[in-house]
């Protein structure tokens, strides 16, 4: 079985985000990048399938700061092949990314066809679309999103997957392979890998860099302005030590007859 995992870097929102002087984009100066959290679940799902059934796992990620570390970490966890797609800067947009991958991936020897293409179901900067269904549409393979369990019957060319609905309800679906799945979760949190193993992977190298071919995407949506959200309201802030604020909250609860 062949599995392709798409990962991408997104701004780390633990850091303070600032708007650039153009008023329409993030100030890159203090921006740090981390891997889109859902993509880590996509990788884990691929590795679980590899552990269970045997598979070769190829990880593909657009070039971005820190992406090499993410790719080598994937290798240390068990990925077989690492591909970095250059010429598609972070923030290119889901539309342009999917369009470029749709022409770039088929040109990479041995990357496609894959039985499964897995990607995180959404990223925090997906303003103009979701990469997974856009790419599925372009590649002409079935797509299902918000998946959190995957089991494959390779002989039958089918997968059974669980999709999350609200309130703990799961839907069971049958998907014909090859297919593209947007991953929301996993039966287990992403595996831990010791730093020494990551260092060894970095030492061994082996990231293949591939230049993206430009795809044809619809005109992107235009960002006229970017700003911190105007809130309809803001919390009244309580100050003091943990004990002080706890007493204040208890006062508020008591005043409302909640204690």
């Amino acid at each position: 079985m062949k599995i392709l995992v798409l990962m991408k870097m997104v701004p780390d929102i633990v850091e303070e985000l600032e708007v650039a002087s153009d008023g329409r984009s993030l100030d890159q100066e203090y921006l740090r990048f981390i891997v889109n959290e859902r993509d880590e679940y996509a990788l884990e799902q691929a590795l679980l399938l590899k552990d269970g059934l045997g598979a070769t796992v190829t990880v593909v990620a657009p070039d971005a700061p820190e992406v090499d570390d993410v790719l080598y970490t994937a290798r240390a966890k068990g990925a077989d092949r690492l591909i970095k797609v250059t010429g598609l800067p972070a923030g290119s947009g889901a539309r342009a990314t999917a369009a470029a991958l749709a022409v770039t991936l088929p040109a990479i020897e041995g990357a496609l066809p894959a039985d499964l293409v897995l990607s995180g179901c959404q990223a925090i900067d997906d303003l103009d679309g979701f990469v997974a269904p856009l790419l599925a549409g372009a590649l002409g393979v079935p797509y299902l999103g918000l998946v959190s369990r995957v089991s494959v019957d390779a002989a039958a060319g089918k997968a059974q997957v669980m999709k999350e609905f609200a309130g703990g309800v799961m839907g069971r679906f049958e998907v014909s392979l090859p297919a593209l799945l947007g991953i929301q979760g996993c039966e287990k949190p992403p595996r831990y890998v010791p730093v020494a193993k990551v260092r060894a992977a970095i030492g061994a190298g082996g990231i293949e860099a591939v230049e993206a071919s430009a795809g044809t995407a619809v005109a992107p949506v235009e960002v006229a302005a970017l700003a911190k959200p105007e809130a309809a309201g803001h919390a009244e802030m309580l100050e003091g030590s943990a004990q002080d604020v706890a007493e204040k909250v208890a006062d508020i609860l008591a005043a409302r007859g909640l204690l």
Partner: protein
Amino acid sequence: MAGNVWIVAESWKGSISDATYEALALGRELADGLGVRLEAVLLGHGARAAAASLGRADGVLYVDHPALADGVGEETSRALAALAAARGPGLILVPTTNVSWDLLGLLPARLEAPLVNFCREAVVSGGGVEFTSLLYGGKMAATVGAGAGPVVVAVLPGVRPAEAGKGGAAPAVEEVVADFVVGGGVRWLEYEEPEAGDVDITQQDFLVAVGRGISNEANVEVAEELAAALGGAVCGSRPVIDQGWLPLVRQVGKSGATVKPRFYVAAGISGAPEHTEGMKDAELIVAVNMDPSAPIFSVAHYGIVEDATDVLEALAEAVRKRKG
């Protein structure tokens, strides 16, 4: 933007979702502002009766097809794209819920139309529509324009009160044929309901919600103590569920439950839109977060910039003391 405004009605397990009525209320404003018709689109099989509650629309377009019975996005997106290609709407509003997720992802590809994601506000301005989208987990808002239609808009839950999208006389329902080829690659088999036995967090008056900011599993215990003192239960955000620190049925938000307790403490939760849509209507919300700019503080009534676990511990103590 000459075409009509469409709102894709979401019918799941036999009823129209609140997110549909919320988007319908927004659609009503946009259609009136643009001077066009507001049409609700309902896709299903033997589901025509559900159209009766969509009276805030000027009319309902109903597509009946066996392949649309289970709401599989592979098929609904094909039907909707075919219908849109034939009729040329200007805007297609789709509620951003797990039910409409796949339709939302696939429709822009099938229609070769732009998508405006994470839309939490839209206003008519200068003959067009200006959208506001929440990006980066709610930390930034983008003002967005999109060219000529059709434009697909992913409307965040809570964009308007659901009540504002209800009412009106039963609308005229036009049964239309969508000329699409069934994909067949995805088949719905069954729903699995959560195991009974755990607490139902939607029935609690007091909820202590924990997020990634509580740092480790041991601190869930501290939240349990506060919940016990209050007479409520512990719930959590996605990462806490992903880690297996709490079971899936304790999740609050888009993929979890929508809760309206009398008191909700959000401890170490950033306030991403996918979380806040599930708790923003709680009567009293207190948020504890180390980051003074965390989006949760725009939803909470009271905010505390402190270590989450320290505050939970102190609050449990204070509550126990008051209750004697």
